[in-house]
């Protein structure tokens, strides 16, 4: 007799292939529908309600923010905000990746450097970066540098440690093999080990993106004159949910796109890395 697995329930369930995407999208549809219903009901009761704006209200808010030149600054606010925020993330996380790669690679390959720096790195990576935000603002000022430094420091120690461990995970056999093939110490580090670490660097940057966005929004909320985080905290004073919700969706989309792009690059440029995982 044929065994029949249940559709959905229990550990033996085998959801039909066609049904899977439908099931996956279901919770999102439910959430959106629930919002639309609540919004509709509330606006029926009080058309001036600001907490749950309708879709058309959000669309016109986006039109105003993204496609109308702002009178005071003469820019399209949403694009200007996006640009400043992305620049901060790119500079902060990018430099953290570069410095972290350099430090982690050398700590992993040069035992003298490893034993000297690892305890300090371990200690520093446990300091919550947001707790030292005031310190950063005091030292580097509340301008661009302070915000970029927060993202930099928030990423640096995590990336350094990760790259260190990735370097250490390269089998000893490979190192010895490269030496028997005539590699100098310099060649070993930069031509044998570094290319193998590159995909891991992209992966750890990808995993650090979430934290980087958190630090970005936090620092923009506290002291800034532009940026996506600055904007949502600014319009919060006027309860402008019609701006906040599209902005949050936009930030989410940006994060998702960056994540996908990095994942795409890793799979595309380093097929051997994906195969080894």
């Amino acid at each position, binding site marked *: 007799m044929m065994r029949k697995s249940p559709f959905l329930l229990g550990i033996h369930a085998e959801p039909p292939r066609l049904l899977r995407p439908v099931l996956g999208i279901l919770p999102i549809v439910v959430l959106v529908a629930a919002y639309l219903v609540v919004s509709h009901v509330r606006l029926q009761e009080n058309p001036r309600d600001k907490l749950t704006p309708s879709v058309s209200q959000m669309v016109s808010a986006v039109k105003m923010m993204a496609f109308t030149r702002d009178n005071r600054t003469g820019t399209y606010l949403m694009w200007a905000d996006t640009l400043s925020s992305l620049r901060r993330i790119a500079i902060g996380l990018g430099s953290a990746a570069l410095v972290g790669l350099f430090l982690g690679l050398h700590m992993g390959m040069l035992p003298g450097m490893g034993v000297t720096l690892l305890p300090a790195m371990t200690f520093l990576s446990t300091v919550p970066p947001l707790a030292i935000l005031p310190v950063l603002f005091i030292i580097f000022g509340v301008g661009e540098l302070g915000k970029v430094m927060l993202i930099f420091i928030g990423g640096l120690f995590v990336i350094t440690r990760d790259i260190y461990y990735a370097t250490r995970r390269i*089998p*000893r*056999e*490979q190192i*010895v*093999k*490269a*030496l*028997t*093939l*005539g*590699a*100098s110490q310099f*060649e070993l580090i930069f*031509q*044998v080990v570094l*290319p*193998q670490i590159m995909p891991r660097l992209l992966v750890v940057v990808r995993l650090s993106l979430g934290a980087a966005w958190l630090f970005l929004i936090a620092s923009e909320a506290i002291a800034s004159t532009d940026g996506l985080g600055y904007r949502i905290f600014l319009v919060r004073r006027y309860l402008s949910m019609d701006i906040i919700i599209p902005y949050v969706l936009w930030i989410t989309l940006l994060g998702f796109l960056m994540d996908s792009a990095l994942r795409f690059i890793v799979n595309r440029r*380093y*097929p*051997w*890395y994906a*195969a*080894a995982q």
Partner: protein
Amino acid sequence: MREMPDTNSLLVLEDVYKAYGAKVVLDNIDLIVNGGELCTVVGPSGCGKSTLLRLVLGQETPTLGRILINHKAVGYPCPDRGVVYQRYSLFPHLSVIQNVVLGKRLSAGIFERISRRQEFLDEAMYFLEKVRLAEHVDKYPHELSGGMQQRVALAQSLIMKPGILLMDEPFGALDPGTREEMQVFLLELWEEFGMTIFFVTHDLEEAVFLGTRILVLSQFYSDDRGDACAQRGARIVADYPLARRASSTVVKEQAEFGELIQKIRHEGFDPGFRQHVRLFNLVHDDSFQTLTEEEHNME
């Protein structure tokens, strides 16, 4: 068996000890290997075969004693000695041809690397044809079968023309059919290129089939240092020359082949049989043994 070596040989180990803390792994190893030999090393698991190979490679240093290659003390790993491991011999981020050409590139200067680029690639192709992988040059290691990966590893080492090629259980992870193929294949290459190979394996049949000489490394022996059953570091308890055979696996079925295997299994792999250091079967012409006084105060 001789008392002292003339150190004119390719590889010389004299009074080599290796201990990790209080645990002695290798105990007074004496060994000479001459050029052209395919020297196999067998022994029970945990007897320190791989440790011995790492010492020769320069990956580790002996606690006592000296190791000479071409009359020079062994330093860090370098192109004098090639190596093929069971795994991790290939660089996962490089294609087959890049893996093979890597040694040439790393050993060359920056300008040479550019000016002789094509020459290096041609040489790599030559060796890839030798290992019969010419159609797979652009694949990555993860796209190859285990046997093919080991053939690339061989080409990768051969291109450097090392004085001695060290192999650490190179066929240990292959299925029996591929394994036998690779054994025959290795013999062909060994013959064609006149290589000197130091081949570590736990597979007795493989060792007897491949070698021109077999070394049996074992911790099961006795000497006059007291408490006969104490855990000793391993020594070379037997050393036989092996007849050169046609590279055919038919010999594996011959009675003589089986008898030698049985004999070695008894001498090296049986914890109950502990031969005295002075009675080891060190039959090979090159074998020698320097005993300390404590080890043989029988007289």
